[in-house]
């Protein structure tokens, strides 16, 4: 709250439809008030998504990527979490100031969410059929039988074999991948315009991860939805995302389209992330890791929050926080962004 320098830099693609994005998060601030002190989890995040595009939000755990998503969905645990500033506009209307009932109707129908761990996110004591058809019954006023029929169709769509019989099963009777498919089917029930997928593959086996990502990409394309894909896994992002926002300590530090970002990262943190990926051409070499730990959100370092771990750190980084400034068709929050863009 003592922040004076607020990040108001225009974000990418703002020229596309002036001010008319489907979902627009602007200058969002969230803090967690705990017994040990106040943790500033999100410090001025802005991004937007339009129909038919996928925004990947990338970052370590604790970077605030999931909390942003929870705030958009309105499922932030309050207390300890409090929104202290900013707006989230869906179809031009601010979700944060909207009446509770109106906002409730946006959930599921306007914006839906796929959670990381389907085993705990699905209610263990109800059949998956009940949990999916519940949406049709309570939100669409359908009968129990019609709801079940629609639920079977949805399970078919997400390619669950023998959907008709599996509808009567409980979540624990599915395998991890199938369970995540159920989760996805449930989120699609009310034909949302935006789907938020919060680490949808993290809890899964590597072999299944690709299948789930393909499914998500396919569904997004078919339905022309907007998608926010939250992940800490750079590998997952490359094939699916259109744009990438990299988060660190509750701020976006770099934003670019997927090709530019991979080709030439313009923030030392993104560079470090890419460096830490295993690469085929460097087989046999030791993997690079980012030195140090993610910052304690109760004591975010002065200046650039990344400076204690940055390999390019200079004096200005310790005293002045760099704003997220556009450079061409991308944006970076580094004092030396121009140099990084201009390299090679």
């Amino acid at each position, binding site marked *: 709250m003592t922040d004076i320098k607020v990040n108001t830099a225009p974000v990418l693609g703002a020229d596309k439809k002036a001010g008319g994005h489907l979902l627009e998060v602007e200058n969002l601030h969230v803090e967690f008030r705990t017994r*040990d002190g*106040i943790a500033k989890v999100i410090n001025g995040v802005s991004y937007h998504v339009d129909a038919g595009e996928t925004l990947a939000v990338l970052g370590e755990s604790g970077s605030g990527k999931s909390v942003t998503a929870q705030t958009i969905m309105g499922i932030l645990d309050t207390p300890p979490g409090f929104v202290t500033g900013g707006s989230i506009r869906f179809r031009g209307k601010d979700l944060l100031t909207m009446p509770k009932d109106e906002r409730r109707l946006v959930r599921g129908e306007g914006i839906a969410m796929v959670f990381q761990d389907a085993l705990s996110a699905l209610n263990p004591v109800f059949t998956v059929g009940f949990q999916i058809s519940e949406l049709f019954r309570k939100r669409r006023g359908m009968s129990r039988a019609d709801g079940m029929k629609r639920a079977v169709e949805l399970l078919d769509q997400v390619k669950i074999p023998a959907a008709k019989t599996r509808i009567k099963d409980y979540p624990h009777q599915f395998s991890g991948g199938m369970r995540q498919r159920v989760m996805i089917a449930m989120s699609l029930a009310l034909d949302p315009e935006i789907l938020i997928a919060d680490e949808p593959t993290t809890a899964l086996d590597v072999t299944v991860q690709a299948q789930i990502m393909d499914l998500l990409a396919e569904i997004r394309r078919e339905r022309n939805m907007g998608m926010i894909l939250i992940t800490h896994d750079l590998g997952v992002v490359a094939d699916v995302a259109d744009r990438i926002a990299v988060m660190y300590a509750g701020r976006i530090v770099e934003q670019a389209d997927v090709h530019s970002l991979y080709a030439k990262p313009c923030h030392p943190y993104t560079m470090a992330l890419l460096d830490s990926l295993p690469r085929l051409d460097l087989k046999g070499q030791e993997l690079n890791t980012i030195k140090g730990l993610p910052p304690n959100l109760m004591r975010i370092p002065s200046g650039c929050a990344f400076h204690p771990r940055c390999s390019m750190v200079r004096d200005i980084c310790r005293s002045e926080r760099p704003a997220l400034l556009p450079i061409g068709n991308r944006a970076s929050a580094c004092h030396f962004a121009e140099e990084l863009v201009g390299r090679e």
Partner: protein
Amino acid sequence: MSSPEVATATSPTEPPAAPVTPAAAEPAPRKEKSRGLWSDAWYELRRKPLFVVSAILIAFFVLMAAFPQLFSSVDPGYKDLNRSLTPPDFGAWFQFGQGGQFGYDVQGQDIYARVIYGARASIVVGVCAVLGNMLLGGFFGILSGYLGGWIDSVLARFGDVFLGLPFVLGALVILSTFAPVQSNPSAFRITSLVILTFIALGWPSFARIMRAAVLSTKQLDYVHAAKALGAKPGRIIFRHVLPNAVAPMVVVGTITLGGYIGAEATLSFLGVGLREPVVSWGIMIGDSRQYMEPAPYMMAFPAAFLVIAVLSFVMLGDAVRDALDPKLR
């Protein structure tokens, strides 16, 4: 970082100092966390009013049980029918050596003195029964947890036999067998009988706690390691198992103690528990039944003491459990 204003502590609300506080205060709780379960629990407990109040009350009751003379110089067994059903005398509080603060019962016995002396029976029965339970239950629990196999199964079924009997009912049958309703056993005999009855019916619960502690401890890596290094079972039990079992034992023991004080009073009230010449709150309440209308104080005072005593132990156990179980905090 630290401004001189803060050092002099003249302006605690000074704005510039405020942002420093959370950061400066942060290392403090860290230190506490490393102090271990018991010191952490103690730290937590001292701040709980419920705990402090119940601990003080229990200290009072224990003092009463040990040295009743400190509280009353009147003989609780002395009968004077001339004083029968005399109401409480408030003035007696200010005259040393005088009785009748709580009035006199039908037989002209001093209710205040009897209420004070009644604490002894409750505390002795409660404490002895719980200690006995811990020893017997603990022993069988270690046996079944450590040996496992058929011994475990047999002991489990054997314990079920006692747990299957409803508590009051089982106690009723046992007590009335060894001390029939109309008989007049000596104070020592009937007191020990009540204690033994409680142990007989209660030990399986404590055995279950100990068995669970043994089983969970057995899974721990360092216990495997100790075993592999050739540590003897006795050493493993004393060094690893018992420390793990102490916390749940203490919690359940404290709450059970409160329950036993209530149960003793209930059985004495029914006429199968303690009886004359033992002074017990339960007997006093039982005796008061016919005189509720003319002399409600005959029941009110022993009932109040009984309720406060049970409540103190239950509250204490509750507070200790909350302190030892961070999940419920």
